[in-house]
Structure formats: structure tokens, C-alpha cells
């Protein structure tokens, strides 16, 4: 195991040297002594080479897209183009301050304005805020907008949001954060929202529904129009979680099939890097009637140029980010959309769907797949059979995949499939790479039968063996104990 950076520390060593002091005012002149720190913070003392070696060594312990397939369902781990990384590092982006005079920001604002427009078109909706810093913050923003809408309409009795049982955990958590109660809508045998149960749940208290479409089983909600009619009949709103938008580009516009608002995950659908857990970006698109509630500011255009406009300040939900959102992520998504255009985006979804169906076809013989119909961009396998017959869990299978050079699928999600393995290959994977993954999954299926201990003990070839997460909870160790 690698030492921590603190253990590489040597007193007096430096990674970077600052210019000599041109102005030397003593601290005692500037501050009262009672404000000052008495003991220096024990940050590491390391050279640039020490630092580089340490973090490059750590980097070798990661799985990442360029290393191998990353089939995490609903995470859309597609390839992140390198051109984005080069272009975003232009000083005219990196060194822009949010309080610069507007006339010195016209390029940045123009880019944001065009991205707002393009995302609105992809959604089939009227307007977009780019402010949310992540998908979950997009959800929060969207639910705030729903609350603001009902407040204006005097719908004060509306206190509940309906969420299907296949939804991401962020959905109910985002609703709670806004102050809504949530009720769970069961799925039917076909893996879709159960319309009869929906009718039972919907009443005057219903403020809206949050639907991931296609849902986390990789299935399109076929009866979406009927759902919309039921929801709209009580003046509730239709929210689409756009986590799975990679299946719909140029095929369906959510705004045209009954949804009133949605969020995007630019780090999924629009190929910006996940960064090991952010920064992402979660813009929200809304229909005409929800425009007044968008966070401030939005980018507008007139004959004088582009502006950060807070015109809707009085009706707006306010702000969810200190400034205008994750601009550096927006630049990457902008480039992606401009390069692909309408035809390219449609091709993205077509190939995402083709690749998922191909893999499903390859693996159906070895792993149980509950819903026997073409999937959209992802599908869910169930390892219950392996568990029952060989005592091998989905967790074991996931860990064994790591030995074979692949990341595991999303596991134990959606919750309605007990030993779920949710696979999303994305359109950027080639047929050869899908075949290699399918071969690995087949090998594991055979190992479950012939050599179950091997699977239960996996992984064996990774930088560390199976990690004891129960111990991490019991004996909480959140920091390295620094020496005095």
C-alpha cells in the first residue's frame, strides 16, 4: 500500500517557491495577535517530484475510461473527448472572473446562451438554467420550481411528489430537501409505472411526479401520455430525471411527450468527464409556464449583446450556486453538441441502444433478465439464480469482473431487482470491446459453477483485495494521524 503524502514529508522541502517579498509589512502591524494561528498547519513538505510521484502512483490504482469498459448503468460512462480538455484550458476561460464587466465576457455569455438554446431544443422545452452544479442539484432546482409554481397558483395544499420504486435515491432526497413528502409508485409486471396504482395515489395533494425515462430498468415508459394526463388533471407537474437521456437524443423530446421540466446530466449524456465524483453539471429545462421561476441570472441577448439577466428575480426560486454554475463543464458540453449536431446526437442514442441490446443478447443465456423485450440504452440482469445455486452474490460477480480488467456494472440497483446488475455500455464502445466484456461475463458465469471459491474471493489482481467496509464504519478513521 502507498504511504500517505504526509509520510513523504521532510522538513524544509518545498514544491514551489514564491517571489521574494517586495512589500514586507509585519503581521503584527496588520493583525491583532489574538487573531493569529499559534501552531503552523502540518501540511506536507515535499518537492514537486515527490508530489508527482506520489499522485501518479495513486493514479495507477484507479480504473478509468481509457483503461477499460466502464459499464455502470445510469451513469453513462462514455469516452470523454480530449479536444474538450485542450479547448477548455484557454486562458480566456480559465482566467475569467464572475464579476468582470459584461463587455469583457461576451464570448463566455454567447457560449452559455447557445448552450441554453441547444439544450432547450433537445428537451423540447422553452428555457434552460445552467446553474445547477450536479444532477442532484438539478433535481433540487426542478423541485423548487415545482414548489414555486404551486405557490403562485395558490396550490398550498399540494405537499406530495410521486416517485416510482425504480428511481434513483437522489429523487426522494431532493424532494425532502425542498420540503415535499414522497410516495412510492410500484412498478407493474412490465417494469413500468403501474397506471392503476398511479390513479389511486394521485389526488389534490399531488404536486408532481418524478420519472426517469427510460427508467432504470432500461425501459421506455410506454404509457407516458396517460401518466401525463393523470398528473395534469390535478394541476401537478411532470418532472423528468434526465439521467438516462442518452437513449433519447433526437428520438424523443421530453417536452413534447408530456413533461413540464427536466434536468440534464452533462457529465453523462454530453461526454464531460466524471472527475472521480464531480464536477458535473445539471442544467434544468422548463416549459413556457415555468420560465418565471428559473434561478437568476439567465443569459439573455439583445441588440447590445449578451447579458446576465435577473429580470425574473421577483418570481425566481433564487440561486442554487454562488455564481453561474460549472462553467468549465458547460464549455465541454457545448463543444460536444456543436461537433455532433442533430445527426450525430441521434447516432449517439441509436448506437447506445444498439450496443445495450447486443450485450443483452450476448448475456441473456448466462444471467437472468426479467424483462424480455428490447431495452433502450441499458438493461438489468438479476444474479438471484447464481446466489441460490452457488451462493455467489452479485457483489462477488462484480468483484470478479475487476480481475478481468473491467469495471463492474451498477449493482443492487434498481432496488426492485434483488441481485441487480445494471449494464450501460454506451455508444463509444466498439463491438470488439462489447465482445470482450461479454466473454468475461460468460467466464464468470462458468466459474460460478466450476470454481465458486475463486469468485467469492475476488478480486485477486487489483491493487488491494476485497475491502472491509464494515470495519471502516465501526472503527471510523477519517484522517491520517499527523505527527507533531
Amino acid at each position, binding site marked *: 500500500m*502507498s504511504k*500517505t503524502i*504526509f509520510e513523504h514529508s521532510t522538513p524544509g522541502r518545498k514544491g*514551489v517557491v514564491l517571489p521574494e517579498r517586495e*512589500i514586507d509589512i509585519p503581521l503584527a502591524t*496588520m493583525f491583532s495577535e489574538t487573531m493569529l*494561528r499559534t501552531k503552523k*498547519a502540518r*501540511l506536507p513538505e515535499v518537492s514537486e517530484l515527490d*508530489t*508527482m510521484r506520489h*499522485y501518479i502512483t*495513486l493514479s495507477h*490504482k*484507479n480504473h478509468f475510461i481509457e483503461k477499460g469498459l466502464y459499464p455502470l448503468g445510469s451513469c453513462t460512462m462514455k469516452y470523454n473527448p480530449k479536444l474538450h480538455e485542450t479547448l477548455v484550458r484557454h486562458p480566456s*476561460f480559465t482566467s475569467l*472572473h*464572475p464579476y468582470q464587466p459584461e463587455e*469583457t465576457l461576451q*464570448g*463566455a455569455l454567447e*457560449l452559455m446562451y447557445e448552450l441554453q438554446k441547444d439544450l432547450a431544443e433537445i428537451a423540447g422545452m422553452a428555457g434552460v438554467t445552467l446553474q445547477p*452544479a*450536479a444532477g442532484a442539484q438539478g433535481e*433540487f432546482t426542478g423541485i*423548487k420550481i415545482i414548489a414555486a409554481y404551486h405557490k403562485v397558483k395558490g396550490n398550498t395544499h399540494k405537499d406530495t411528489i410521486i416517485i416510482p420504486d425504480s428511481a434513483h435515491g*437522489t429523487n*426522494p*432526497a431532493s424532494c425532502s430537501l425542498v*420540503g415535499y413528502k414522497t410516495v412510492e409508485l410500484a412498478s407493474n409486471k412490465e417494469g413500468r409505472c403501474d397506471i392503476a396504482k398511479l390513479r389511486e395515489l394521485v389526488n389534490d395533494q399531488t404536486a408532481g411526479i418524478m420519472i426517469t425515462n427510460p427508467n432504470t430498468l432500461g425501459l421506455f415508459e*410506454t404509457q407516458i401520455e396517460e401518466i401525463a394526463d393523470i398528473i395534469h388533471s390535478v394541476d401537478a407537474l411532470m418532472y423528468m430525471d434526465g439521467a438516462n437521456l442518452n437513449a433519447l*437524443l433526437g428520438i424523443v423530446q421530453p417536452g413534447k411527450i408530456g413533461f413540464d421540466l427536466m434536468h440534464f446530466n452533462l457529465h453523462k449524456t454530453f461526454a464531460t468527464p*466524471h*472527475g472521480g*465524483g*464531480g464536477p458535473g453539471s445539471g442544467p434544468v429545462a422548463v416549459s413556457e409556464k415555468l420560465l418565471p421561476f428559473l434561478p437568476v441570472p439567465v443569459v439573455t441577448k439583445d441588440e447590445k449583446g449578451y447579458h446576465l439577466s435577473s429580470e425574473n428575480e421577483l418570481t425566481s426560486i433564487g440561486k442554487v450556486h*454562488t455564481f*453561474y454554475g460549472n*462553467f*468549465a463543464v458547460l464549455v465541454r458540453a457545448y463543444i460536444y453538441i*456543436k461537433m455532433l*449536431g442533430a445527426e450525430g446526437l441521434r*447516432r449517439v442514442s441509436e*448506437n447506445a441502444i444498439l450496443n445495450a*441490446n*447486443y450485450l443483452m443478447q450476448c448475456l441473456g443465456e448466462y444471467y437472468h433478465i426479467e424483462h424480455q423485450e*428490447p431495452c433502450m440504452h441499458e438493461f438489468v440482469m438479476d444474479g438471484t439464480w447464481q446466489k441460490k445455486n452457488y451462493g455467489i452474490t452479485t457483489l462477488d460477480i462484480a468483484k470478479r469482473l475487476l480481475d478481468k480488467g473491467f469495471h463492474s456494472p451498477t449493482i443492487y*440497483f434498481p432496488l426492485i431487482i434483488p441481485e441487480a446488475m445494471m449494464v450501460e455500455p454506451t455508444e463509444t464502445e*466498439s463491438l470488439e470491446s462489447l465482445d470482450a466484456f461479454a466473454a468475461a461475463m460468460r467466464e464468470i458465469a462458468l466459474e460460478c459453477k466450476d470454481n465458486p471459491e475463486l469468485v467469492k474471493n475476488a*478480486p485477486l489482481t*487489483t491493487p*488491494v483485495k*476485497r*475491502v472491509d467496509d464494515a470495519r*471502516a*464504519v465501526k472503527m471510523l478513521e*477519517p*484522517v*491520517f494521524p*499527523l505527527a507533531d
Partner: protein
Amino acid sequence: MPYISNTERDRQKILKAIGVNKFEDLLTAIPEKLRMKSPLALSQPLSELEINKNIKAKTDKNIPCEVVNSFLGGGVYDHFIPAAVDAIVSRPEFCTAYTPYQAEVSQGTLQYIFEYQTMICELTGREIANAGMYDGASAIAEAILMAVRKNHLTKAILPATLNPNYVKVVKAYTEGNGIELLIAPEKDGLTDLSALENMLNDTIGSVIIQTPNFYGNIEDAKAFDTIVHKNPNCLLIACVDPISLAIFMPPAEYNADIAVGEGQVFGNNMYFGGPLFGFFATRPEMARLMPGRIVGGTIDKDGNKAYVLTLQAREQHIRRAKATSNICSNESLCTLSAVVYLCLLGKEGLIEVATQSAQKAHYTANELCKIPGLALTYPNAYFFKEFVLKTPKKAEEIIKALVPGNIYAGIDLAPLGKPDELMIAVTEKKSKAEIDSFVQAMQEVVK
């Protein structure tokens, strides 16, 4: 088509393997009438060559701080970033990885987060930190929500000296949860402590201190401690500039129960205000009430040291509607920038950054105040690297007049009802010559 691997031949092969004739056969679940009849109305696709030109047309219309003499702050600051930071952060091993759920192939990410948490705890003096938040604003909001989970008291006091953008975000985050926000008034650029004392009673769940505050002034943190902790249940939430912590008393020493702040200053580009990242540290007894990811040390099956996401039972993917937060990602790559930055600067270097920023800010203030008509708005307050100047004409006019000379003079406080006040930030990046030329330009413009 860029970034799509399948050729037409592959496509046919796939269709055959699946057993359908054409792609549309896979869309049977989407009712025909819901499908788009015509393509999306987007501009023609651009090649790599063309997008380079498209982006250049954009960057040409921006005038970034790098090519001017900028004194802008207000939450985002132009500190020096060593080149090695980007050399690490741009590595695909870190950049294109997912949230480290599969610990065995994510030790790189997990260990740097562990090191990040250690550094945040060392700087703030608190015992446990999470893996990061979206920004300083949401970190404060989540701190208030955590305080409510702890003491079930639903009133929070924000100082009038808090960054106004933070106030807006805090409002958005708290208003649906029945939390009442009270504002402690400002006096001479600082929180009015006697007013704060009068506002406090046993219904107040948390009090925020921002120091240095929005105006750059250093609040009397010890006095906050005394006033706030008279009520043993009330939590003190400190929002701090982490660079300042190299020289200033860590929040734990004035008994801040939660320490948060904006982390952009640690090795992250300004990028027009995003991405930013928030840091969040607290007492160990509140570990299970915290929002966000936490990495913990443990061992693997062979007894070797390993790291893993821990205390996940708090989180949305487990607890759903009852989670401590809806937060999912944690601006991880920005915290990696912070870790690498703090390694390169190190124990002495961060002190030097803080000291030189303060020295240069004080020099700038001293020189500006020699100009007739200019004076500090808050002459009796201590400040760190940012200060407010009273101007003889509208700050807006001064700012406008200096733009052609490639100077961004500062922030106009007119939106806060202070049209003749200019807020100026100075970091270690400014040379004396740059400051002197700014001072000279100011002299011209206020004549």
C-alpha cells in the same frame, strides 16, 4: 461520426445478432406518435478544425484577468496555481474515473480524498471532514440543515456581512424545511455583536460567522464563541477563506462546531465562477449527521491498508427520502487540485501566500488612501486580502473608466445599496509595479 465506434458493418452485425431488421424495431416501446418526425434544430455538425475556430471566436471576445490588472474578488480569487497541479488533475486516471464505489479499483481517488480530508481537518482544527460539496454557499446551507438534525432548532442567524450570493443559496436550501433565517445587522463592516447577543435565545439552532466576511473584514470570532455558546445547544458555523487559515486561528480554536468555506482558492482556476468546491468539517460526534461522501481508512482481506467510502447509511442511495442530503457528487477533481496545491505550497508556502496576499492588500489600501477623496469605508476593522473603499463618485463609473486601461478595479457594491463603494481584492499574484500602476490610474480617475 466522431466518438462512435460502430461502422455500418458493425451495425448490421449487431442488428443480426439481436434478430431485428432495422434499428427502429428496437423502439417498439415508444409509441410512434411520440417519436420525433424531423431532426433536432441544431446547427450543422463541426469538425475538430471548425470547432477550434468556433471556440477561438468565443475566446477572442473575452478579456480574461490574465491579460489585465485585476482586483476582483467577492468569493472567487485569482491566486497563483503551480503548473504541476494541472499535470496531475488532467490525468485520465483521475479525470475520467467515476465516484469510487468499487474501492478495489479506486484506491487512487479514495486515498487523495483521505489526504484531502486530513488537510482540511488540520487547517480548520476540526476532527472530521467530508469529501467536498458543490461550493461554499451550499456548504453553509448544508451546515445549517445539519445543525437542525442535531438540535432540532429551526432558527438560524446569518450575519448581514455574509456574502450576499451565499445568503440567496442558503434561502433556497432552507425555506422549504421550515427553517427561519434571521439576519444579524452590520455595524462598521462587522457583525453588530450586541445586536447578535440580543437576538440569541434558546430557540436559535445555529449562527453563521463569515471571517473574513464579505467585505474582507475579520470578525471577532472569540466574541461569537462566547455569545453563541451561552446556549449549549446552539451551533457556531464558521465560513472561512481557507488560505487565511495558514496564518489565522483555526475555527476549532474559537469552538466553531462546523467549519465550511469556498475551496476554489486552493489550486482551482476561476473559470467564470465554476466549478468551485465547498469544504465541510465538524466534530466527530456529528459524523453520522454529515452530508456528502466520507472516505475512511480500513484494511483489505489480506490485512493491507485500504480506503473506502464510509458511513454510507447517511446517503441518498441508501436512505432515500430520509438521507442527510441529496448530494451525490462532491466536486472531487477540484479537491484533487486542492490536495496537489497544498502539497506543492506545503507548510511554509501556504503561509507565504497568505502573508504576501495580506501585505499586498494592505499596501494597496495604504497607497489608495493617500489619494484625496478615497478612504477606507471601515477604517477600524482588520482586513485580510480584500477591503472596501469609499469613492468620491459612483464605483460603477470608476470601474468603467478603468476598463479601457486594462484594469478591473474591483466590485461595485451598488447592488447592496452602496453605490459609492468599491471592493478591492489583492492576492500574492500582484507585483508592486502592478499595484502602483493601479493606484496611479485611480488617482487619475477620481481627480
